[in-house]
């Protein structure tokens, strides 16, 4: 195997749809089309998002390290997401605001719509509008958009550390996070107190 495969354009487009099928299926099955679940992490009531997200990152990252070390996958031919430090920091922060307000992100809004949520469709329309709005104001923000370009830089390149050591650090950090989340979930300390506070609010209101 010499991956990435060099498929014809049409075969590559068919594979895009097939990969999307699995992507959507796993998102929905993880409950990631449900805005209450999606925002739950920010209220310490549901940790499905970080659990699914960091599990996915660890699985894919481990696969990349194994396959590229075995010379089965040539990562120099895979599109690495380039870094634009400040635009991605500001973009990520703005994204967090939009996520809390709408209850979705782009992929999960589509999954939410698939499960019959009309509010997810409204969010999708908003995302389309926001994308076009960006294009409309682009001449005024082009300077900022292009600042702090660092190219397709990875953490192993940036830190000079071996990718297995970085991966091990990630496993330890994510493992500690998962442990803390399970502990929160089982103890129900925060969740229970929050529910009772909400009930009191409803009674007094």
């Amino acid at each position, binding site marked *: 195997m010499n991956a990435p495969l060099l498929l014809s354009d049409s075969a590559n487009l068919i594979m895009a749809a097939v990969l*999307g*099928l699995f992507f959507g299926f796993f998102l929905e099955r993880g409950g990631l089309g449900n805005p209450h679940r999606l925002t739950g992490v*920010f209220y310490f009531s549901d940790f499905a998002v970080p659990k699914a997200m960091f599990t996915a990152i660890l699985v894919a990252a481990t696969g990349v390290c194994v396959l590229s070390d075995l010379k089965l996958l040539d990562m120099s031919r895979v599109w690495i997401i380039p870094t634009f430090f400040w635009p991605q920091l500001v973009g990520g922060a703005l994204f967090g605001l939009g996520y809390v307000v*709408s209850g979705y992100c*782009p992929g999960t809004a589509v999954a939410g719509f698939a499960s019959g*949520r009309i509010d997810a469709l409204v969010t999708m329309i908003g995302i389309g509008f926001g994308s076009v*709005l960006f294009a409309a104001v682009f001449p005024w923000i082009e300077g900022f958009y292009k600042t702090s370009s660092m190219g397709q830089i990875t953490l192993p390149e940036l830190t000079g550390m071996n990718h297995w050591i970085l991966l091990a650090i990630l496993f330890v950090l994510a493992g500690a996070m998962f442990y803390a989340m399970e502990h929160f979930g089982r103890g129900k300390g925060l969740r229970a107190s929050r529910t009772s506070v909400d009930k009191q609010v409803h009674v007094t209101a």
Partner: protein
Amino acid sequence: MKKENYWSPYLSGVGLGLTLLAAFVIAGQGLGASRAFAVGAGSGLKAILPMYTATLAYLSPYLERSPFADWTFLEVSGLLIGAFAGVLLSRGFRLQFDRGTGVSIGMRTLTAFGGGTIIGFASRLARGCTSGVALTGGSQLALSGWVFVIAMFASGFLFAAMFRRLWS
């Protein structure tokens, strides 16, 4: 609240991770989502206002070909069908306007559209979203992915207090 029969998020995460790995191996790129919205909305705008759309230099790479020849647009079309299959298999389909208790439909429309607008704008600025930058970049151990993930969660926790009433 109706009892949901979702999978464990860890199991869902393993599935997502393997799908992402398959995308690297098969297509030489990760999974995306927000690009499809730029392609879709850009194509819609082009159909309604072709002259104006032609002046938007930023959109031109997104309008080079038909949406149905765009990798991410097709991937997100597949996502819609895959999620629908998941909902049907678990008999979870329910037409609803999902929102927190005490949130009116008018308010929910506003938060869904307004939040969506911010997401659309932010995704363009960051060169992608939770799929294209956070998941894909994160698993490539790319700096971009981790900058985005940290900024998104930090900001989410910061703003969550302000918008608590929307989701309680």
